[in-house]
């Protein structure tokens, strides 16, 4: 049991995909202007990563090594398309706001990286947990960035006002430079925290 728990928790904190491997940083910057966007994007990556883990692990006995990359890409693309279609069907506004970034999960290195490094070598259940963990590790980083950007940049959180009326929001945080600065500072902070014993 504790081994399974470790599989789930390691990618969330100790080997966080964004900070530890610097993977998937594109979308982490792009969709974090609103907390709601970050939540949906996090859900998308978590679902697709978990599903990809399960399927790649299931396909292990039948897929030859030489075609594994193609198969992995196909599995990932299938789940991303499924999520994209569901989002378009049930929450069209959100789908418009996220624009191409849901489709771009296909090239998000977290999914392919975990499929290659973990699901290809492990049974189904641990692969599911690893996918979930990687997705959650990605999601919390997005949420932290989004909370900063939305609360200080627009003065709201999930649409509710948090800054007092009349306080001017720092719109710079909404713009690309703000995203880069915030991410850089976050990386710095996390390194500082982690080095402490």
């Amino acid at each position, binding site marked *: 049991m504790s081994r399974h728990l470790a599989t789930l928790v390691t990618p969330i904190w100790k080997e966080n995909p964004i900070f530890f491997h610097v*993977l998937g940083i594109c979308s982490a910057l792009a969709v974090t202007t609103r907390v709601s966007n970050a939540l949906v994007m996090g859900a998308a990556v978590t679902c697709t990563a978990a599903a990809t883990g399960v399927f790649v692990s299931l396909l292990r006995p039948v897929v030859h090594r030489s075609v594994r990359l193609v198969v992995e*890409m196909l599995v990932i693309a299938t789940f991303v*398309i499924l999520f994209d279609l569901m989002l378009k069907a049930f929450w069209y506004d959100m789908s418009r706001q996220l624009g191409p970034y849901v489709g771009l999960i*296909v*090239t998000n290195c977290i999914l392919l990286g975990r499929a290659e490094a973990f699901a290809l070598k492990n049974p189904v259940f641990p692969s599911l947990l690893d996918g979930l963990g990687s997705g959650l590790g990605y999601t919390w980083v997005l949420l932290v960035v989004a909370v900063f950007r939305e609360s200080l940049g627009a003065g709201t959180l999930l649409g509710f006002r948090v800054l007092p009326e009349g306080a001017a929001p720092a719109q710079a945080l909404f713009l690309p430079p703000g995203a880069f600065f915030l991410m*850089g500072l976050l990386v710095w902070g996390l390194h500082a925290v982690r080095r402490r014993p």
Partner: protein
Amino acid sequence: MNPGDISPVTILIAAIFTNNILLSHYLGMCSFIALSRRLDTAVGMGLAVTFVSTFTTALNWVIYHRVLARGALSWLPGGLGDRVQLEIFALIVFIAVIAAFVQVVEMILERFSPAMHQALGLFLPLITVNCAILGVALFMVIRGYGFFQAVAYGFGSGLGWLLAVLLMAGLRRRLRFSTVPRGLEGVGITLIVTGIMAMAFMAFAGMVRIQ
């Protein structure tokens, strides 16, 4: 303004300066951080990205608008073309086209120009997972560009990425001689310098407008 009316030249300039794929759409960050460590790798990857993005955008435009888009196959007999919905496969097709194109280019280079292959060979396989290339294809569909607009956009985005990674590699070369706080070394300082660069590029904002 209707996106169909913008001239390809405007789109080209906008894709390089005001709507830079990296600095304003954050695409291609992974390889940007990894390859801006050295000037020569930055140039190699930048050229490869420009080349692949120009040609795959053209290919993907043709495939999307002549095969996948709604109504593109309505010439098929028996109303078959109106009944099939191929749009949902766009993502898989785009990826496949990019991967296949990269593979073919690699084989051609290996056969006819070993020198070029030596210079770019290492970067070509990496491009398949560079999200900037797929991003260009998806933006082209979302914004409804025509063929020449799409090609200009693909070429401009590649050049924009090349410009950004080149500048970054130059800056990081200087950065090596400065004392950076320990936790900020590597990724952290690269992100912050990219932020400053994005801010500098915002000065171009009044030049052209495509959105």
